[in-house]
């Protein structure tokens, strides 16, 4: 069996190693796809923001056990329920040597909320950010939010002088408008970019002026990242010693890696919940040919889809038992999770009845967007779901693409899917952000249309709700949860919200997979439940 989590014994022994004494230690690792951008505000995707977390830092960061640690802020206090004070670390410099101070936090707070930033929900748009002095920053919000900083571990601080000197403007998703920050970086983290060839190789080296030197176990001085889309190639490279760390190892290869003398598996349950998102807002369901009709707007049809998917078989056959079936859109370990929620049972007969009731006894057709290099066994799961839906008469035409094309198709502004498979990791490890980003109505104000083309840049609440699920009751509850400071009341509200969304069949939650990292013998890593690879905890023995 794999080591579930790393023991503290390892940590202690690793700490005893002196990083300076042990020459150049290179960490060579590979994953499925490349990072989306070097600009930390462009795309909120676990792998990209996790990768950048080794280069950039936020005011806070998450420890391997996901608890919140101080990073660029040494400490913080709540002066009143709406007034936060952060005391910044004083000995920090950016990679170009510029000292870090409060002005950079203010710049980052502005930029993260501007343009097409994907991290707008890190800070309310009406929150004021004030520099009290060079190393003290106040955040003044209009509504109390007891977990304001929970999502800040991947809100990275950028340097104002560097950005302005290089003409870095607002974050922009469109690849045609690449800014200086897309290919360069100036962070405060332990590693700095040496060279980057997108899609081919990214090389980084240790930043000698890092403030946290000696506080973490790593002895890595060089990092080489290569995207290797083919899983078999990745595993072969690990087994032959060409790579130190590969992620993910496909479930069918875990036994092989464990049996090899040169490799081992580090694994653990993830907090990422895999789910199917159903397009409920387009007037014409993409790929259906039903002009002006969208069957997925009907709750009965959504339940029929849910019940047509035999998750147990997917779990046993494709994931080989290495996953936890999910009934909720958040994983165990996330605040607000409750095991009292149960999945709608697999029942193809009931599914056919529901379809007949809804007026689609012969089913219907739509486009099912799938990725083939983003998640564990994503292509196989997609095709299996497509085959299962066919058994109740629903023709989900699977369109399997690589990550870049896949995300372009399903994210705003295209949102060209009937059904798509995605994963969600709540950055705050609290249910609120899952409700806020995935379940709140994606519209600029109450009177405008869902995903109105002109309002795309204004949508913050529901920014990942590409399904267009919209229930005013959820909007109200999410806003209440945000400002509720009493924990019991807050959790009761969260429970109420989850009850409504599962009754509405807003999404089809699938499972949390167990991430499996293939690690070369002699290399120490800390596997985190959020799948972020923090090089601060990597040790390489020669």
């Amino acid at each position, binding site marked *: 069996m794999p080591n579930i989590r790393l023991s503290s014994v390892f940590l202690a022994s690793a700490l005893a190693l002196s990083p300076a004494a042990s020459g150049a230690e290179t960490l060579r690792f590979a994953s499925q796809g490349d990072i989306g951008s070097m600009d930390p505000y462009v795309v909120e995707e676990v792998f990209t923001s996790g990768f950048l977390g080794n280069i950039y830092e936020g005011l806070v960061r998450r420890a391997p056990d996901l608890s919140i640690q101080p990073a660029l802020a040494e400490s913080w206090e709540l002066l009143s329920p709406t007034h936060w004070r952060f005391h910044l670390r004083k000995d920090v410099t950016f990679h170009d040597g510029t000292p870090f101070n409060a002005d950079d936090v203010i710049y980052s707070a502005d930029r993260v909320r501007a343009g097409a930033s994907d991290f707008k929900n890190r800070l309310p748009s009406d929150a004021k950010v004030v520099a009290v002095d060079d190393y003290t920053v106040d955040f003044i919000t209009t509504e109390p939010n007891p977990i304001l900083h929970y999502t800040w571990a991947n809100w990275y601080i950028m340097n104002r002088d560097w950005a302005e000197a290089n003409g870095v403007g607002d974050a922009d998703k469109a690849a045609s408008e690449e800014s200086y920050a897309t290919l360069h970086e100036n962070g405060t983290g332990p590693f700095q970019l040496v060279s980057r060839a997108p899609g081919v190789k990214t090389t980084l080296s240790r930043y000698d002026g890092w403030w946290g030197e000696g506080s973490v176990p790593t002895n890595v001085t060089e990092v080489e990242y290569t995207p290797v889309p083919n899983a*078999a190639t990745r595993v072969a490279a690990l087994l032959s010693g060409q790579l130190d760390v590969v992620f993910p190892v496909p479930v069918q*290869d875990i036994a092989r890696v464990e049996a090899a003398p040169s490799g081992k598996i580090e694994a653990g349950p993830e907090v990422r919940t895999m789910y199917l998102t159903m397009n409920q807002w387009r007037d014409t369901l993409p790929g259906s040919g039903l002009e002006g009709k969208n069957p997925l707007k009907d709750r009965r049809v959504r339940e029929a889809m849910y019940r047509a998917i035999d998750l147990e078989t997917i779990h046993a*056959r494709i994931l080989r038992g290495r996953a936890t079936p999910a009934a909720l859109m958040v994983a165990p370990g996330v605040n607000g999770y409750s095991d009292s929620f149960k999945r709608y049972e697999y029942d193809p007969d009931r599914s056919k009845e529901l379809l007949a009731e809804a007026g689609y006894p012969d089913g219907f057709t739509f*486009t099912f967007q*799938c990725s083939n290099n983003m998640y564990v066994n994503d292509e196989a799961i997609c095709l299996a779901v497509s*085959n299962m839906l066919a058994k109740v008469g629903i023709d989900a*035409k699977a*369109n*399997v693409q690589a990550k870049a094309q896949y995300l372009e198709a399903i994210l705003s502004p295209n949102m060209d899917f009937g059904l798509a498979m995605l994963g969600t990791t709540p950055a705050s490890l609290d249910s609120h952000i899952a409700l806020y980003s995935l379940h709140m109505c994606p519209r600029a104000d109450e009177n405008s249309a869902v995903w109105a083309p002109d309002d795309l840049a204004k949508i913050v609440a529901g920014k990942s709700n590409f399904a267009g699920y919209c229930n005013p009751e959820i909007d109200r509850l999410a806003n209440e949860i945000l400002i509720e400071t009493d924990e019991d009341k807050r959790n009761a509200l969260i429970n109420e919200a989850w009850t409504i969304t599962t009754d509405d069949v807003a999404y089809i939650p699938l499972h949390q997979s167990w991430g499996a990292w293939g690690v070369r013998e002699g290399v120490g890593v800390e596997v985190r439940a959020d799948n972020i690879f923090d090089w601060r905890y990597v040790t390489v023995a020669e």
Partner: protein
Amino acid sequence: MNPERSPNLIMRLLDSDAGYKFRSSPVTVVAGLVFVLMIGAALLAPVIAPFDPFDKGSIDLMNSLLPPAWNSGGDPAFLLGTDNQGRDLFSTILYGTRTSVFVGAVSVSLAVVAGLFLGLLAGYFGGLVDAIIMRIVDIQMTFPAIMVALLIDGVTRSFLSRDQHDELAVFVIILAMALSIWPQVARTVRASAMVEKSREYVMAAQVIGRGPWLIMARHILPNVMGPVLVIATINLGVAILGEATLSFLGLGIPAGEPSLGTLIRIGNDFIFSGERWMLIYPGLTLALLVLSVNLLGDWLRDVLDPKSR
């Protein structure tokens, strides 16, 4: 046996010069048998195959990853085992071979038609026509076939909607393969046409006032067909491999539809985990098909090329 007395067509064919070369080479006989068998099985796939891989509703995930029937744990219903979706590998291979053969045959036919026409024009007229056509050929021959195919695939993706592209995927591959093969045909035809046009029979035809088109079609064409036939056969193998390569890269036939390349790509993911049948049988099928086509091409060349006699 006396050649003049042979009773029927097949016997006469076997007794001909080509037939002698065929009979006297066991390798060619085996290749011919394998080729006929595979083409037959591919064409009759809907009759032979126990399952229809296009019918998504018939695929049951519970049947996934079964080994071939003769292994322990195998199910007699699935002769060569199943893939990771529970599709019967034997049926999927049959349908996949059908796709491959269809793509190969149609793309080579297109390439031959285009290559013959343009090659004849270039060879017969010479001068500016020749220069223009042959420079296009030169430019195109600098691109490897797969690159041309990737280019066509990318271009068509940009102006076709996704659904259209999926429906037309097979034709996109055919177009791509035809485009990468026709320059070879054109070049060969041009060379032969240049030789033929200075022969007396062509001059005689010109003297009696026949137009250039008629001369090309009636007099030169039959005399350049030999080498074209050889190139076409060899390129049939190239086109089949091209389709498999594109599908292997995930650019050809849409995922979920049967294709040898897609099967090999999926099988490749299971190469470490012991379910090797998913890679071996589609791979073996592809190798046998292409090998038999190439061996037949060699035989044709021996027969048709006077220099090797």
